[in-house]
Every structure is written in C-alpha cells, then in structure tokens.
C-alpha cells in the first residue's frame, strides 16, 4: 500500500486555482482591512469632535475593532509560509534570481514614480533629472538583462517553455495592436501611444500566458 493514492492525486486542485483563490481572498481582505481602518479613524474623529465617546460609541468602536482584528488575522493566516516539501536546488536558485529581479524593478519603479513631484507617475512622460535617468537606465540595461538571463538559465524546461510561449504571444500582441493603434491615432480616433502603457499591456499578456501554462 502506498501513501499516495493516484486516484486522489487527480482530485487535488491545480496550483493555479489555489493561487488565484488566495490572491482573490488576499486582495478582498486587504481592501476590507483598509476600509475598516478608515471607518474606525473617521468614526473616532467625529467622536472626538463631539466631546468624547459615550457607552454606545465605545461599543460600536469595539465591534469595529473586533471585525478589523478578525480580517487582519485572516490575512495573516492566508500569508504563504515556507513548505516542508523537498525542492530541487535549481528551483530554489531560480526563485532567488526572480526575487533579485523584483528587488531591482520595485525600487526602480518607485524612484521613477516619485522622481519629480506629485504630478509624476511611473507612466509619466515628464522630464526627469539626468543623473536619475542615468542610474535608472544603467540598472535596467545592465542588471536587468543579466538577471533575466541568469534566471532563464536556472529554470527547468517546463518553466522555460511557459516563458517562451508567453513571449511569443506577447510579441504577437505587440505586432497586431501597436500598428492598429498607430493608424487609429493618425485617423484621430485614439490619443498618441504611451510606450510604457504598451509595455504594461504586453507584459500583462505575457504574464497571463506564462501563468496559464505553468500553473493551470
């Protein structure tokens, strides 16, 4: 008798279904938590303006605090933790490389987004300081490709296949959408293209295909 029943293995939900469910719960829970904190802050502010809490206010605040704590506890339980299952060295190494890529991208996005005041954003075309531009370009053109190449060398063939399929689909999306948008702009139907928005759209297509191939 084996400890793994092959008929039961097939009934286990896919990784993709689990990830999507957790993400939906996490986003919903996060929004609910922010909402509850806002409600408590607003209610407390009004209460103070009216000369402090009475017994009813205290009870209402207590219930709201309890609901907030329950949501926060649910999110904490939902947070992914380390698994005991064995893992190939290649998988650990690829994950570390991916973390390094994210570690590079997130600060870069924040720096660019906050570079020139409140009116600027990651997708802004506003001018930025040359020194900042030089740092961002150097990071993106040198560290970016290097980390991507190292990551691709470490992933297994299944992941590499998912990555390649996503890339081909994304290139096709770019090839068909971009000229159509360009023509529509010339006809006066659409505003001029923002290259960063195009990049975002292509990246989303790439990610969806990769996720589908890898996890669903």
């Amino acid at each position, binding site marked *: 008798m*084996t*400890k*793994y*029943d*092959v008929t039961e*293995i097939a009934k286990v939900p*896919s*990784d993709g279904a689990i990830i999507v469910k957790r993400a939906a719960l996490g986003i919903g829970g996060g929004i609910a938590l922010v909402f509850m904190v806002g409600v408590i802050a607003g209610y407390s502010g009004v209460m103070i303006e009216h000369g402090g809490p009475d017994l009813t206010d205290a009870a209402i605040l207590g219930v709201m605090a309890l609901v907030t704590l329950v949501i926060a506890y649910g999110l904490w339980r939902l947070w992914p933790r380390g698994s005991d*299952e*064995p*893992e*190939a*060295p*290649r*998988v650990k190494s690829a994950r570390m490389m991916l973390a390094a890529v994210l570690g590079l991208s997130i600060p870069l996005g924040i720096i660019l987004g906050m570079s020139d005041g409140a009116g600027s954003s990651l997708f802004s075309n506003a001018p930025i300081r040359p020194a900042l531009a030089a740092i961002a370009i150097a990071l993106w053109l040198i560290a970016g490709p290097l980390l991507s190449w190292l990551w691709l060398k470490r*992933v*297994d*063939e*299944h*992941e590499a*296949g998912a990555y390649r399929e996503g890339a081909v689909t994304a290139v096709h999306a770019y090839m068909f959408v971009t000229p159509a948008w360009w023509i529509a702009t010339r006809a006066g139907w659409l505003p001029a293209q923002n290259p960063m928005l195009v990049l975002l759209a292509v990246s989303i297509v790439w990610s969806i295909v990769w996720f589908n191939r*890898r*996890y669903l």
Partner: protein
Amino acid sequence: MKNRLKVLRAERDWSQADLAVHLDVSRQAVNAIETGKHDPSLPLAFRIARLFDMSIEEIFHDEV
C-alpha cells in the same frame, strides 16, 4: 502523450516534490508531465527512464 509516471511514482511512495528533486525540476513540471500538459524533452525523458530503470517506451507512449 500518455505516461505511467504517476503510477511509477506512487509505487515508490514518492510525492511529486520527491520526484521533482530526483529529476532536478520543479514540482509543477512533474505535475504537467503527469497530466500530459507538458511533453518532456529527450534529455529529461532519458533522465526519467534512468531513474526508474526502464526504457522511455515503457514509460511514455503516444495516443495513437
């Protein structure tokens, strides 16, 4: 392409993660091969065959 990977793995009391470590791939890769969503490359098919001490044809067969 169909295969006997799930049965061979279960006969040895291996989880997908155990087999993934033996093959130096991710657990998702093992799952994709078992469910027929990913056909392994020849080098990986040979690694699988060597691991189970069988020929590739004894593990994988086409659906014709």
